[in-house]
């Protein structure tokens, strides 16, 4: 069953329409990639899901229609969104960033358990909890952003360009961790990427957006073999 399903979702910034009817499905327990050029509507699609931009159409998540809901309420349903540029709370400490991730939760024991679970992926955080987040490197801030999202114990993790501005070796580490989170915890992940190569290797399925519409979709293997994808996004 699909955990997340978008049906003809439209969204605008003022009078400029960014999404012209996006439909896609994310199966429970899978990693799905959203590919496309700059300005294709990838980020807007994630923002429509988490309620940061007003959307019409249908967005079904775990049985609820969440289109048009406020982000505060969407988070409470179990969707964690790591925004583009990481959304690091730079003046707060690493530990405070993590606490904010668990803000809506009341189950102290489970939060503790989720903290331990999160530290399995990011062991370096433990010794640097009291550091101000601004002093972390870009890669560390991206990892902290993912760790913060995991503290929500999300059913669905939305990742917006986790590779943005990072060195190739750091990007590889981060994608390994993303895959591990999906494999070990069964967390469903929808990841936006410009780096199609990387995304197709991590994801089972992918959708390609062009000017606010889905123009191609399929399994990662299919898309990786697709001639036009190879030309436009894989740099062949």
């Amino acid at each position, binding site marked *: 069953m699909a955990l997340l399903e978008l049906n003809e979702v439209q969204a605008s910034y003022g009078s400029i329409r960014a999404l012209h009817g996006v439909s896609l499905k994310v199966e429970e327990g899978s990693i799905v990639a959203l590919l496309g050029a700059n300005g294709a509507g990838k980020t807007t699609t994630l923002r429509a899901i988490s309620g940061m931009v007003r959307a019409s159409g249908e967005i079904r998540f775990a049985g609820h229609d969440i289109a048009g809901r406020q982000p*505060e309420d969407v988070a409470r349903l179990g969707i964690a969104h790591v925004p583009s540029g990481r959304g690091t*709370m730079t*003046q707060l400490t690493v530990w405070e960033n993590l*606490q904010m991730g668990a803000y809506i939760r009341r189950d102290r024991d489970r939060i503790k358990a989720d903290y331990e679970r999160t530290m399995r992926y990011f062991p370096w955080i433990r010794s640097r909890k009291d550091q*101000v987040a601004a002093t972390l490197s870009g890669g560390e801030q991206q990892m902290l952003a993912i760790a*913060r999202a995991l503290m*929500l114990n999300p059913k669905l993790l939305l990742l917006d360009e986790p590779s943005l501005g990072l060195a190739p070796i750091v990007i590889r580490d981060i994608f390994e961790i993303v895959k591990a989170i999906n494999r070990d915890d069964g967390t469903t992940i929808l990841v936006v990427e410009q780096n199609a190569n990387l995304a197709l290797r991590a994801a089972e399925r992918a959708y390609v957006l062009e000017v606010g519409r889905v123009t191609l979709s399929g399994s990662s293997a299919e898309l990786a073999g697709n001639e036009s994808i190879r030309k436009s996004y894989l740099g062949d």
Partner: protein
Amino acid sequence: MYLVTLTDFLQQVVSGIASGGVYASLALALVLIYRAMDVANFAQGEMAMFSTFISYTLITSFNLPFYVVFPVTIAIAFAGGVVIERIMIRPFEGKSVITLVVVTLALFYLTNGMAGLIFGYILKSFPSPFSSAPISFGGIFVTVQDVGVLGVCLVILGLVYVFFRFTKVGLAMRAAALYPESSRLVGVRVSWMLALGWGLASAVGATAGMMIAPITFLDPYFMQPILLFAFAAAVLGGIESPLGAVIGGLTVGVLLALVGSYLPAGQNLRLPFALVIIVAVLLFRPAGFLGQATVRRV
């Protein structure tokens, strides 16, 4: 020609520190709102004035003792701040700074006019919770009042610090003020955090009002000079820094006490001097004492 003795000087410093506690409290209220909205709340002093009138009414009309009136007034001020935010500020959330400034100016005149209408314009003497008996610290005489005022202000400021530093809601309020988008994504109701901030600022301002009223007397205008002193304190400390507001408040308190007692016609020079502080800081060090330090606090 008079002689400035060290004892006299120290006495002025000590009494300056006491009023400085009051300025620090109101400055902190300004900083709390500024951090959340990037707007100086020009009505902060008038809100404190109105709260002080409420406490005056509780004392004189209901014959309640001060130790009851104080927390009750703070609770009323808190609720009032939240309600004002919901009714007057919320419709303008996300609007330009200049819009919000105009709204706080409207609130300034509204509060002032309502206080005049309800409580009248006749100067009232506000019963002090502390005696004005002098106590001696190694030759320097300070009044119980000075020590009490400073003590109450420092306790309130300490509580605010503990709240922001060690509670979950306090952390969420800090996050919501600095990172509204990231905060919404983790489920913080940012708009309500702003209302809480208004409540808290109003409560801290009420403390300032109740502490200074016995010294200045009470009428609908009594907080206006104090607001200017608080602005000077907040700007001096760095308008975004709560700790800066406290340091700035105490500094301004001491400076004004010295200006008031050592310059000819000094009492009349206190307001212009506060303006000089504001202009000088904005010209030569716009970030104040701690303004920059908060931006990259390491």
